[in-house]
């Protein structure tokens, strides 16, 4: 062990190679997972959990994609018989639910859970067991939805589950219950991730990384985490507290006969549902900045403007929800207000786009695959943004409401605005996660087919929508004349599918035989590149001191670090919230099985509640046993400072 651990300032000391190797071995012993399958079940390492989150969410992207392909096959020509109306309803509902709740939000959270600690120079997230618990809850939700779909119990009222269609009167059986409780699992997971990311960002940043120096990806994750904290309770209220209760225990939230109100559902759902869109695409915008910076070979233009744009987008996002309800009786003044707000939000988004364009314009861009995806994002997303401004107008919205125009708009926004940058992010950070680079030639094929496919699929839908084709119909008649544009859209879906297959092949080949990346293959500026690829279990050997927004681009000969965290037990450094001054050392949890156990109890509780309310009592009871075990485990510690229980005499 290096002599730097005596608690005094070792200003003249240097860490020798031998000391570094010894420290690395000691930290590995302390921070590594338990061996084997048990270690897999009990890990609390944010990288292991982040990785499995990313893989699971990507599998959900594939599942949702297969459902999309089934719908496009059905709609490829008029009066097709590939899917019947009932199955079509289940498929489009499962597609939307999967993409929104099981792919997009978890994927964006997962990227944050994996990279935020690395970017702020921390050893782990703030609450590692909560992190594991969130993932297991999410996985329970994934299994629950797909098992239900395969036993013909798939939800069938759309991902928005509007009442009264989804209420007990019009949707008997358990299909809507599946949807309502699936949402519960994903909201628990999202809230757990959000609190983790907020506290990690506020309290665990590397010394010197004051709030005005944190990377823009971390800013985006922070802002989105706050959005989750305020948006997810709305859907929890709507789905778990109201819809599920109306269906299970006869509450009257949405029953007009007893004073309930169907529009209330739309309010609570969209109060969550609109911010949800920004929850999905703000992190993607956060991914764009480091890619643009790195491959333009200059610092991003307008850091402060980008941060303020992020924050203002988050604020505005909560004032737009009624534009989903322009076809309901909303007072005119309310409509005008929500129209104005819906148009206003284009401004901060535009500011971000201009900042990136200026960065590229004034830099020396290198057109790697990651950078191409950013360019593809700007092109596709701007189209989606413009149709969004069109839909903000009440008179236009009245015409386009519930038509394929809306489908075209939100796929441009979500695929163009979120998935395209995400693909770029995969190319950019894959080497950090695996140690190997993705193949650039296959990457470029992937890029071109993907962007062409997205435009080929969704652009014709604008015209179909303006021509009156409603969304969520399982077929149409030949005289409508919608056949050829639908066929084009279906061919586009095939092109997207091909691009995704190329990506999967690329990942499979590169994972085994890709070019070795080294710690910093792109000569990037963020702290995550200051540790080997893949990062070791403890992330960083010593705590880096940060002197600017671009620590790896600082023109210094060496890297200043703080030493003195324990080498014998899991310990992390906490820093002050604003200035990131070293403040305290925190004992960090060891691996634990309890998060998995408690998540399974949540499964018993919420899945069981569909069949009988008594499962709630049983599941919660079992969960309390788990929480007791959880607390018992965290109270294990050694040392003379322990608080002893009272002796017999004292008790007497």
């Amino acid at each position, binding site marked *: 062990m*290096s002599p*730097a*651990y005596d*608690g*005094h*300032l070792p200003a003249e*000391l240097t*860490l020798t190679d031998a000391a570094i190797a010894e420290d690395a071995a000691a930290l590995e012993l302390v921070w590594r997972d338990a061996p084997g399958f048990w270690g897999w079940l009990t890990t609390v390492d944010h990288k292991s959990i982040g990785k499995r989150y990313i893989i699971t969410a990507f599998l959900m992207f594939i599942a949702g994609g297969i459902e999309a392909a089934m719908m496009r096959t059905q709609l490829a020509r008029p009066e097709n018989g590939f899917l019947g109306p009932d199955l079509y309803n289940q498929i489009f509902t499962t597609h939307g639910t999967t993409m929104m709740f099981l792919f997009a939000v978890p994927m964006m959270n997962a990227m944050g859970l994996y990279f935020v600690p690395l970017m702020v120079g921390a050893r782990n997230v703030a*609450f590692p067991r*909560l992190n594991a618990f969130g993932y297991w809850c999410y996985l329970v939700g994934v299994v629950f939805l797909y098992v239900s779909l395969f036993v013909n119990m798939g939800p069938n009222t759309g991902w928005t589950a509007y009442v009264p269609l989804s209420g007990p009167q019009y949707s008997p059986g358990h299909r809507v219950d599946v949807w309502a409780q699936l949402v519960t699992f994903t909201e628990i997971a999202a*809230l757990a991730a959000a*609190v983790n990311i*907020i*506290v990690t960002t506020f*309290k665990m940043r590397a010394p010197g990384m004051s709030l005005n120096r944190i990377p823009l990806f971390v800013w985006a994750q922070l802002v989105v985490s706050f959005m989750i*904290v305020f948006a*997810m*309770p*709305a859907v*929890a*209220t709507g789905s778990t507290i109201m819809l599920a*209760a109306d269906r299970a*225990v*006869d*509450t*009257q*939230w949405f*029953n*007009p006969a*007893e*004073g309930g*109100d169907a529009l*209330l559902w739309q309010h609570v759902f969209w109060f969550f549902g609109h911010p949800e869109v920004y929850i999905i695409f703000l992190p993607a915008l956060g991914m764009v900045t480091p890619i643009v910076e790195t491959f333009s070979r200059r610092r991003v233009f307008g850091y402060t403007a980008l941060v303020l744009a992020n924050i203002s987008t988050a604020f505005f996002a909560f004032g737009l929800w009624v534009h989903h309800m322009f076809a309901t009786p909303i007072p005119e003044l309310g409509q005008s207000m929500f129209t104005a707000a819906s148009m206003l939000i284009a401004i901060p988004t535009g500011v971000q786009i201009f900042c990136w364009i200026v960065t590229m314009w004034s830099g020396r861009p290198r057109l790697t695959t990651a950078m191409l995806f950013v360019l593809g994002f700007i092109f596709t997303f701007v189209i989606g943004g413009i149709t969004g401004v069109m839909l903000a107008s009440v008179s236009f919205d009245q015409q386009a409401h519930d038509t394929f125009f809306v489908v075209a708009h939100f796929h441009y926004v979500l695929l163009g605005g979120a998935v395209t940058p995400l693909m770029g992010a995969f190319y950019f950070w894959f080497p950090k996660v695996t140690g190997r680079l993705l193949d650039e030639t296959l990457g470029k094929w992937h890029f071109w087919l993907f962007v062409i496919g997205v435009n080929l699929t969704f652009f014709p839908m604008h015209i179909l929508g303006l021509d009156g084709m409603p969304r969520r119909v399982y077929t149409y008649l030949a005289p409508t004349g919608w056949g050829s544009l639908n066929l084009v859209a279906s061919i586009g879906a095939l092109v997207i599918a091909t691009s995704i297959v190329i990506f999967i092949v690329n990942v499979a080949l590169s994972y085994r035989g890709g070019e070795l990346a080294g710690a*910093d293959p792109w000569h990037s500026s963020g702290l995550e590149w*200051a540790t080997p690829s893949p990062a070791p279990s403890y992330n960083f*050997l*010593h705590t880096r001191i940060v002197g600017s927004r671009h620590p790896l681009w600082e023109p*210094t*000969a*060496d890297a200043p*670090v*703080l*030493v*003195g*965290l324990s080498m014998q037990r899991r310990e992390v*450094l906490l820093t*002050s*919230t604003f200035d990131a001054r*070293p403040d*305290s*050392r*925190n*004992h960090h949890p060891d691996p634990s099985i309890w998060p998995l156990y408690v998540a399974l109890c949540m499964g018993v509780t919420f899945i069981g509640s569909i069949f009988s309310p008594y499962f709630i009592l049983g599941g919660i009871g079992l969960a309390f046993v788990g929480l*007791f075990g959880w607390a018992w485990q965290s*109270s294990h510690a050694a*040392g003379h400072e*322990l*608080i*002893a*229980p009272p002796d017999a005499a004292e008790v007497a």
Partner: protein
Amino acid sequence: MRRLRPAGSVAELPTVTFGHRSLMWWGTLGFMTIEGWTTALLIACYFYLRQNFETWPPLRTPLPSLLIPSINLVVMLISIVPAWLVARAGKRLDALPMRRWLVVSSLFGIAILVLRWYELWALNVRWDTNAYGTAAWTLVGFHATLLVLDVADTIGLTLFLFIKRMPPKTFSDAADNSFYWYFTVCLWIPLYLIVYVGPRIF
């Protein structure tokens, strides 16, 4: 990678901190924000449904009783005192009074939960009678889940301190437990006014 240069040591930094310096305080604050915001949304829904009725409670639905809820409100307000004494002892790293006041807090918690059960029936309406009953039951019931969580946490912490040796961060945990209790009690004040007093006014 550039050569690492030690520029200082953190070995002397404390391991037990309170308030905004502790991770668990932030976690608790996050939980409070989520639960507080959910309650705010439920209150908004309660008033949204109010618009659908001429009178509140609706015709042929009796007013909620005031006695038990008022008693429970007073008990809850008093329970802040032992919770505050727990936090104070925790911050002074004084195990003995902390344990003692935790016992008192636990007893208060149990009493409050028992009263909460009667409080639900003091609504004088069932959750499935009409939208008014649904909204009122949900507000009181949702708050009850927060009470159950915090009382369980308090009892668990107390129990642990009697049966095993606990790490020093328990002092901080106990203070955070009190922090959460203040929140739960404060949250109840508007709910009490809305659900039990409100129907007498609007």
